């Protein structure tokens, strides 16, 4: 038989003024099962809490109802007190007679009646409550960072700095990401390679960081603290341990391929390192272009390798790793330019993307920094930069702003003027967004010192007229049509989510928006967390960002990882779903509706090991206690502890007079 104690709080006059707390306590005392019912001025005060503790001990209470303010205020306080007195904290419930009653009603009689009802409902619930235990989850003290760009590198470094081993996963042959392709960075104009390369070296040399390049996540199982990731290591055909990166192979390789790293403006070999500072500085064979693979001939690299590191028979490998936490920093891609017929990209060689322009001006680029336009190697005298190519264009492309284009375009006009002092740089823009530290000042320098000419308006078409490109557009400030003859046109194309990120998100069980950007658990208050516990997000994987933001987020995510992995066990509330296996049919309804993939099928076998049937099985580590599963179960074989059918039914029934 339940022994319930009820504690009605005055909250000074906050409650007592509108609710007759004495009458409430007396009335409630008559409910069968209530053995102690009392009112007190401030239940949350130390003496008030002591009353609860003493009553629990003295009356051997099996459940407690504190009728006072919203549980948001003091549920933790009172549950802790209950726990200290030896009562399971989940056997304490609060009836909200302040926010939901005394503060919103004037009539004392009505408010008192309502308070009594609210308390009675809670009494009936707590009678049915079951003691719950917080869920303790052991933690694998190891992290996985997906994406080896500057964001991933920073996250890995910060996690390692906390003493936690990290695996840094990169699908390309080298870490470095897009930042390694940039020339100089805004607003400081420091050389991108110069600031990134030391970080790349640092991460490579950190004993706690394991870099896995040319590798992708194949599968993820498990849950917070206990993930099991299967990594696919693509066949590199080069023994990374033995190889010294001497370069003999790629020097001798006869097959030339356009370089992805150089954005199609340069050449690499079929066996190659993507760029000189690559880490690891070990080559990889591009199976799609290597003659050994396409025509089964050549084989020069294997013959000349001084250390016999080349193996054409390498197969992709699958490696299982266990990690406690994951940071997703998969970065971005530029929008495919084939979408912009009006700008003639692909048709006119001198229409290039902003990333191509970076390579064209970069000292380590294909022309070693000598700016030449692709068609005739001429130094461009007039360059037109077009912003918002694909961004802020909800009718045709992406509705969002790609955030960094304004600034890098300003930077590129400066880089251009540094190369061509008398050159003309025109920028077509919609609005200028320069909201970062020193950004506006930087932009002004581009306009004022470097004479970049900003034209507010859209470009309608770019066409070839003889050797020149003609850019036609509108200047909406002067309300006139402009026609500019240019040598080079640079498109600031939209940042989009990279290919394969949706599939990755599905493997991870995290959300993504219609553009393929990953969804934060809360856009403001939990910006580096995914909705799946233990998986964190950083950088452009979430939406367009610049380098400082990406790096800060990397550190933010790393702090989250470290916070999580600093404990030996994770503890979470005991409000999780539970399956009654005897009546579960394994129909998968709950599995389908669970927003957190916390439910999976479990095989029930007989002693001989034969499969008898399948039932749902809740992973308490993943379950967040939303309870969406429960009403979906036709046989009510899954219930949410803490909010069970029986408990809620009791609350409803507490109002009822049936017969």
């Amino acid at each position: 038989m339940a022994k319930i104690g009820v504690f009605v709080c005055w909250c000074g006059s906050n409650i007592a003024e509108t609710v007759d707390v004495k009458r409430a306590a007396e009335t409630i005392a008559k409910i069968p099962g209530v053995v102690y019912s009392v009112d007190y001025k401030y239940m949350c005060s130390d003496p008030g809490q002591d009353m609860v503790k003493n009553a629990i001990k003295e009356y051997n209470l099996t459940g407690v109802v504190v009728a006072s303010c919203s549980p948001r205020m003091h549920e933790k306080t009172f549950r802790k007190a209950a726990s200290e007195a030896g009562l399971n904290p989940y056997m304490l419930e609060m009836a909200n007679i302040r926010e939901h009653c005394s503060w919103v009603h004037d009539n004392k009689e009505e408010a008192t009646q309502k308070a009594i009802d609210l308390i009675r409902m809670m009494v009936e619930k707590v009678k049915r409550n079951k003691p719950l235990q917080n869920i303790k989850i052991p933690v694998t003290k190891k992290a996985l960072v997906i994406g080896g760009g500057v964001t991933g590198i920073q996250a890995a470094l910060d996690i390692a700095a906390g003493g936690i081993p990290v695996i840094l996963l990169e699908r390309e042959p080298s870490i470095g990401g897009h930042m390694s392709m940039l020339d100089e960075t805004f607003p400081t104009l420091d050389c991108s390679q110069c600031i990134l390369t030391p970080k790349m070296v640092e991460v490579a040399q950190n004993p706690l960081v394991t870099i896995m390049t040319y590798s992708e996540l194949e599968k993820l199982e498990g849950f917070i603290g206990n993930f099991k990731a299967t990594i696919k290591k693509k066949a590199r055909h080069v023994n990374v341990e033995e190889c010294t990166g001497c370069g003999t192979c790629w020097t001798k390789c006869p097959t030339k391929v356009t370089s992805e790293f150089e954005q199609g403006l340069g050449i690499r070999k079929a066996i190659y390192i993507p760029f000189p500072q690559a880490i690891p500085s070990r080559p990889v064979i591009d199976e799609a272009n290597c003659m050994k693979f396409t025509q089964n001939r050549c084989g020069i690299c294997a013959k000349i390798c001084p250390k016999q590191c080349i193996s054409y028979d390498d197969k992709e490998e699958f490696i299982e790793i266990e990690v406690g936490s994951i940071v997703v920093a998969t970065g971005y891609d530029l929008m495919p330019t084939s979408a912009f017929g009006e700008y003639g990209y692909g048709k006119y060689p001198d229409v290039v993307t902003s990333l191509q322009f970076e390579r064209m001006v970069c000292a380590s680029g294909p022309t070693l920094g000598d700016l030449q336009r692709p068609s005739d190697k001429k130094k461009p005298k007039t360059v037109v930069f077009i912003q918002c190519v694909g961004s802020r264009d909800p009718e045709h492309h992406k509705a969002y702003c790609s955030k960094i284009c304004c600034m890098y375009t300003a930077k590129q006009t400066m880089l251009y003027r540094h190369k061509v002092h008398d050159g003309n740089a025109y920028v077509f823009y919609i609005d200028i967004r320069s909201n970062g530290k020193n950004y506006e000042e930087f932009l002004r320098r581009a306009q004022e010192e470097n004479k970049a000419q900003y034209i507010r308006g859209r470009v309608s078409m770019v066409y070839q007229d003889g050797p020149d490109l003609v850019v036609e557009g509108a200047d909406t400030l002067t309300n006139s049509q402009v026609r500019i003859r240019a040598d080079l046109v640079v498109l600031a194309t939209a940042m989009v989510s990279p290919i394969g990120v949706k599939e990755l998100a599905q493997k991870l069980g995290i959300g993504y928006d219609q553009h393929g950007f990953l969804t934060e658990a809360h856009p403001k208050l939990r910006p580096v967390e995914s909705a799946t516990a233990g998986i964190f997000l950083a950088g452009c994987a979430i939406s367009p960002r610049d380098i400082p933001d990406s790096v800060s987020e990397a550190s933010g995510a790393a702090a989250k990882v470290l916070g999580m992995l600093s404990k030996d066990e994770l503890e979470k509330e005991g409000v999780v779903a539970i399956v009654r296996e005897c009546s579960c049919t394994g129909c998968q309804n709950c599995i389908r509706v669970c927003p957190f993939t916390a439910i999976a099928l479990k095989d029930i076998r007989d002693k001989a090991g034969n499969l008898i049937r399948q039932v749902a099985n809740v992973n308490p580590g993943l379950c967040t206690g939303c309870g969406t599963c429960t009403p979906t179960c036709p046989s009510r074989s899954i219930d949410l502890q803490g909010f069970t059918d029986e408990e809620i039914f009791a609350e409803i029934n507490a109002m009822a007079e049936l017969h």
Partner: protein
Amino acid sequence: MKEIIEKAKELLSQGTVDLVIGYEQCGDKQCRPLFVQKPEEADKLVFNEFCVHNLATYLTRPEVKQTKRVAIVAKGCDIRAIVNLIIENQSTREHVYIIGMNCPGVVSGKAPNPTKPHTKCQTCKVRTPQMSDVTLGPTPPESIPMDKTITHPDVEELKKKTREEKWAFWREQLSKCIRCYACRQACPMCYCNRCIVDLNTPQWIDTRSNLRGNLDWNIVRAYHLSGRCIDCGECERVCPANIPLMLLNRTLQEEVKEKFDFESGYDLEACPPLTVFEKDDHENFIR
């Protein structure tokens, strides 16, 4: 008829399956389910317009699940139930050998004098069964003319009623329910081994056959079948109280079709519509 018998014999004697579930004649205008485990027992198998039962309901029983493989004589509409059972993890495509029957339509109404064509057959899309392992019987005619003499009040008629008329109608109908659960037991989609009505902590549904219990029971059954009912009409046929149960089920399936563009039992990859959602699901009542 001969081809079913031959097929059953072949499947059993070759060991492809160890049970064939089909129909046998048990009166002039009456058939009933038949379980055949040995080739020599197969001679009783028949198929005709009196084979109304949806045999898929037997697929979820333990003893049938434990067979190595089971063959089932199934009309196109019955296969819809099998599809749902597979989707809902109650069976597998590999375990069931579907002897699909070309079906010109079956009768409705109670034995021993079921003469009217079944309503469901008039709108049937699967007279030639889908997904069967073997299809038997002559190709059914393209269309069967609508019979205007269907007696049970159809969905449109119900919808035309005022709210008060509807309430009065269902009060009257549901007061007849004796809670024998024949509807549930005959239904291929009601496979729970512990029905919600059999739970008592809490007792959501009164087990008494009073109006409250009857209303709750029938609401819950219809709700659980929404987006899953495959319109076989077995519940209505077996109801000893003659409650027009399909009226409710059909109304809900129409709603599912209209609101979620979904018809159950045609696609093995589909999810039951109440287990998924679209972010722009349309409603006009939430404020």
